[in-house]
């Protein structure tokens, strides 16, 4: 099936960009390793869902989330250790499962990545309706399955470039927002943010910055 061993791309300066199967494998392995290093860090800091079984949930502005809340799944996990553990178990086994099916060149890996896309979305929503963290910081889990869904080397490389543009957009738009909303021109901005975030630390312990 896989006829394309190497995908070549010559840019305007005549430099050859080659992206081979080895690169693809390396890239996926890198993602998997990073995923599990983060998982260990989160576990050590008690940031897995089952370590923080939600006792309350919050609403925030996300139209797609409101449709999701209509299913009522978030009410099932309230104060429910075992369901949280189940969600954690699936979320943290999917990447390694994907990696092995990918190595075996199984077509199943595409379906697994598609499932990962849907499941990660649900997991991120559940993880963020409880006030642990914000959804914006979880985009890697939402976008990477789009890349993993491609077995063909050329499509994989194209998606890598799309994700790269999304990553650049992330920083570019943050800069634009700072100018548009006026935060850039405010001299008290940094002090204001630091005070807002660390007021308890300053009030109860440390006496200065």
């Amino acid at each position, binding site marked *: 099936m896989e006829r394309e061993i190497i995908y070549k791309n010559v840019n305007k300066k005549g430099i050859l960009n080659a992206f081979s199967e080895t690169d693809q494998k390396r890239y996926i392995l890198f993602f998997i390793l990073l995923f599990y290093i983060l998982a260990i860090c989160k576990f050590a800091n008690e940031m897995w869902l089952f370590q923080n079984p939600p006792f*309350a949930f*919050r609403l925030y502005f996300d139209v797609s989330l409101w449709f999701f*809340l209509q299913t009522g799944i978030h009410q099932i996990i309230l104060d429910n250790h075992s369901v949280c553990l189940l969600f954690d178990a699936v979320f943290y086994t999917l990447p390694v499962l994907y990696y092995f099916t990918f190595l075996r060149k199984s077509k199943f890996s595409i379906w697994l990545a598609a499932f990962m896309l849907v499941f990660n979305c649900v997991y991120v929503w559940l993880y963020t309706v409880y006030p642990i963290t914000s959804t914006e910081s979880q985009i890697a889990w939402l976008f990477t399955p789009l890349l993993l869904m491609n077995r063909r080397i050329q499509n994989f490389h194209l998606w890598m470039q799309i994700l790269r543009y999304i990553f650049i957009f992330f920083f570019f738009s943050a800069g634009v927002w*700072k100018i548009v*909303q006026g935060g*850039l021109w405010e001299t008290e901005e940094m002090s204001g943010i630091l005070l807002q975030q660390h007021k308890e630390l300053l009030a109860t312990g440390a006496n200065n910055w």
Partner: protein
Amino acid sequence: MRPNYKNLFLVKLYRKNRIIFYLASLMLVCQLIVSFTKGVFTPFYNYGMYSSVIKIKEEYPILEIYSDGKLIDYTGYTIYEYDRIINGYEHVANTNFNGDFFDNRINPLMSLLGIQLTGDRFVMNNTPSEQNKRMKAWKNMTEHILKTKIDSFGIKNYKWNGKLFTRM
């Protein structure tokens, strides 16, 4: 110099794979709609946190926790532990948080689109016994993090003089 449009990524994408090109264009359009309407639709967000004007205030509400008659000093704990205590308290203490948000933000917008959503799914059960249960859950979590029993806790206003916080 005339720009060479052939080198644009979207043009290259159009030549190489039509399906991915349409998908990427759709994503771009969705992101632009979300950005210009200042809305959010997963996975399209606005990365504008802390971009609005934030000034230094004169007064700040501080969560005080007492254990063995002494005020807990948060500096000995990791940022994750600190966040879980403070953020958790904000959401437990704010009893009508979801109700107001549902009535003022979600419902009007969805009615505009002609969609009727069930309020029960959004608003937490706010009976006093349920509120107590949630507060107890927060207290258990905090005691687990602080590794000590809590005597009392509450919000107190502190004054910021530019250098130090003083209790009001």
